[in-house]
């Protein structure tokens, strides 16, 4: 970073969207400065923890199998968001995913077939060889080759916006703040999920019990600065991608290995030892993202998935082994549950299980009868010792409250006009497309398509 130099494009953020923007703008001839608030080792934001990209495709296309036409993609998105999505922007992302893999590969990203335990995604999601950090590393290497200036430990704290025009960013670095001028600004600095105070503002005291699955550097500072600068927002501050994770996970950065995927194979009880939701409602990939919110609404934001020896080996084991006991009663104590209450719940469930043919891969006919809430599929008695449990907490991946953008990735001001030289990409604007719910691999799709668009538009603005 050259002091006093006015870059064409200043990118705030260091994850997938930021790099896609920086690489695209640089390739178009713009001078680019990328400011990553994390140290080098933790660069990449949440992209470090990602693993795939949801891709539209009309025929088998390495590494994807089958087809995933635009309309099916759109239907899936409408389904999870309950219609809370901007169709024009969503369709732009969907179309963009059909052709972006070639660009990604040209910048060093390698793909692999669907990984073990994720075969249901084989026709929709292209997996990154080595995961998101490998992708991020490839992009940083490409950035170095192309001549993007990258600075780590550099946090954008505030923005100078005069009459709807970005003039410069206040950047904290090496213990002091400086004003960094630039001709255009790309906001790609993620959501605010690592900002406990902001979460508390949205969720109340229960936010203290949320675990943050990804980077601790997504404090929402750039989002706040844009909001203060007059950007129109989209989405509700309590909406986020949240899943149920192992309660023993660290408060930040536990990533994928803390995810608990055995809920359809057992029952879930709250701190009172009572069930509260249908564990077999739908196929797990379609429901895994509802359990974060479900657990968040339980007392102390905690829950426990209970299963028996039958289920072991049928799901990807999280990094920590489950709590194990020879009986349900003995299982209760280490979980801090009332033994009689847990036993009562399990007995009532077992009594309600009707005979059926178990098949984890389809919506089978193993269901309960006369139980509230029911378990609609994969209901088998929990009676084969030893018994197991994972304690659960809500694990927040990223928040959806973001800035409004148009199809050129321009930030929309509160008066409805698009900004001339401020663009946004990635989690900071994902709420335009994700009003609620989540689809695996959509975050990277939005980041890649809008990142490239933001870079292209920023470079175009500088040229004109």
């Amino acid at each position: 970073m050259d002091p006093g130099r006015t870059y064409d494009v200043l990118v705030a953020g260091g994850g997938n969207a930021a790099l896609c923007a920086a690489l695209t703008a640089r390739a178009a001839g713009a001078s680019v400065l990328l400011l990553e608030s994390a140290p080098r080792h933790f660069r990449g934001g949440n992209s470090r923890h990602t693993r795939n990209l949801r891709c539209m495709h009309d025929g088998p296309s390495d590494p994807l199998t089958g087809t995933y036409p635009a309309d099916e993609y759109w239907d899936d998105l409408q389904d999870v968001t309950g219609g809370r999505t901007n169709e024009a922007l969503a369709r732009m992302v969907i179309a963009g995913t059909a052709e972006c893999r070639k660009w990604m590969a040209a910048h060093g990203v390698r793909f692999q077939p669907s990984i073990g335990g994720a075969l249901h995604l084989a026709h929709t999601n292209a997996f990154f060889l080595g995961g998101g950090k490998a992708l991020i590393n490839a992009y940083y290497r490409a950035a170095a080759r192309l001549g993007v200036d990258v600075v780590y430990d550099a946090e954008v704290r505030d923005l100078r916006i005069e009459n709807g025009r970005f003039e410069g960013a206040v950047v904290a670095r090496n213990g002091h703040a400086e004003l960094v001028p630039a001709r255009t600004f790309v906001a790609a600095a993620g959501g605010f999920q690592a900002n406990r105070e902001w979460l508390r503002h949205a969720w109340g005291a229960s936010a203290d019990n949320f675990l943050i699955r990804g980077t601790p550097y997504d404090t929402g500072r750039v989002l706040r600065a844009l909001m203060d600068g007059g950007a129109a927002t989209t989405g509700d501050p309590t909406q986020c991608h949240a899943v149920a994770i192992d309660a023993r996970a660290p408060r930040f950065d536990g990533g994928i290995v803390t995810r608990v995927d055995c809920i359809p194979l057992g029952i879930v009880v709250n701190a009172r030892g009572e069930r509260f939701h249908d564990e077999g409602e739908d196929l797990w990939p379609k429901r895994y993202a509802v359990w974060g919110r479900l657990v968040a609404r339980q007392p102390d934001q905690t829950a426990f998935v209970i299963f028996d020896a039958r289920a072991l080996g049928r799901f990807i084991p999280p990094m920590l082994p489950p709590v194990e006991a020879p009986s349900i009663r003995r299982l209760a104590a280490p979980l801090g549950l009332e033994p009689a209450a847990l036993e009562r719940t399990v007995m009532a469930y077992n009594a309600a299980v009707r005979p059926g043919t178990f098949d984890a891969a389809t919506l089978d006919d193993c269901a309960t009868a006369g139980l509230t809430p029911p378990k609609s599929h994969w209901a088998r008695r929990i009676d084969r010792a030893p018994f197991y449990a994972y304690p659960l907490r809500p694990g927040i991946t990223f928040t959806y409250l973001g800035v409004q953008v148009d199809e050129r990735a321009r930030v929309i001001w509160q008066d409805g006009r698009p900004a001339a030289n401020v663009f946004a990409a990635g989690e900071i604007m994902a709420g335009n497309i994700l009003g609620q719910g989540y689809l695996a691999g959509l975050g990277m799709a939005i980041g890649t398509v809008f990142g490239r668009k933001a870079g292209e538009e920023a470079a175009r603005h500088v040229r004109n």
Partner: protein
Amino acid sequence: MSATEAGTPLPPRLFQAGRHAARICNACRYCEGLCPVFPAIERRLDFAEADLRYLANLCHDCGACLDACQYAPPHPFGVDVPRTLAAIRRASYRRYAWPARASALFARSGLALLLGAAAAPLLFAVVLGLLTGPDVFLARHSDAAGGFYQIMPHNAMVALFGAVGAYAAVALAVGLLRCWRDLAALPAGGAPAGAPPEAVREALLLPHLGDGDDPGEPHWRRRWHHCTFYGFLLCFAATSVAAFYHNVLGWPAPYPLLSVPALLGSLGGAGLLVGPAGLLWLKLRRPAERHDQAQLGMDIVLLVLLFETSLSGLLLRAWGATGAMGPLLGIHLGAVAGLFLLLPYGKFVHGLYRFLALLRYRMGA
């Protein structure tokens, strides 16, 4: 379970580090497509010591998974698969080594071994010189007259290297057997796929021996390894053909430049010069945190001995008719003797154990 297993158990901290890393890899799976280590992890729910030894011997230490790892240090989970598996691999070498007493060599400091490797050939030359007497030892010899055998009689050479070779062969065979027993007891977790042809292909072509992370970088490590491995095979073939010529056909050495043993030897010797030098260079260029320090000495000794053997062999061919022949022959024979004596207790065994691990992997473990 580890207490009831025969042989040296892993140090508890190493076992815990290995299990910790493997459990995290099993939950993550992002590296599945990198190499067989990760699919092998996914075939397990948990990891006993024998599982970790198997994984350790499958690993080629390319470092790609460390580069890709979202949990690599300084992340609090501190997952460093290549380094953890390197330490477990070294422990497995000790466990399989015969006799057990000699396996302590694996634990010796690299410097002592290195000095030994450098000094042994010189010592051998000096002793040989004293036994022969300086008149003969330092005299100019005529190639054609079989000058080698004036320095060391043919029968003495055969007796010495027959004994050394037989010892190395027995020790390596016992290690191989112990390793296979360890691997054979593993439960099958996957469907067999292409064993042994696929395992042989992987051992010969080393598709997983990258040099880290960047797919754009040329795979120099694999190239140098091929030079070393095939160089060694060619030299071994040259010696075998020469022994056949001498003992069966009655054609005594030395052989002309365009004969089969000389061609094989020259080609192999060139490989054994370039390969070990290249590997050594890459090794010294590697960042410190990518090394298993305790293993470094062992790795370097093998490379140095191979290089010494080859260099002295080639010089012997070039200067066989000069007064340098005697000392060169001493150094060469000393290097060969040291190489063979250290084979069962050094880096060389990785080739055997890795092949068995690959074979076991293709059989479904």
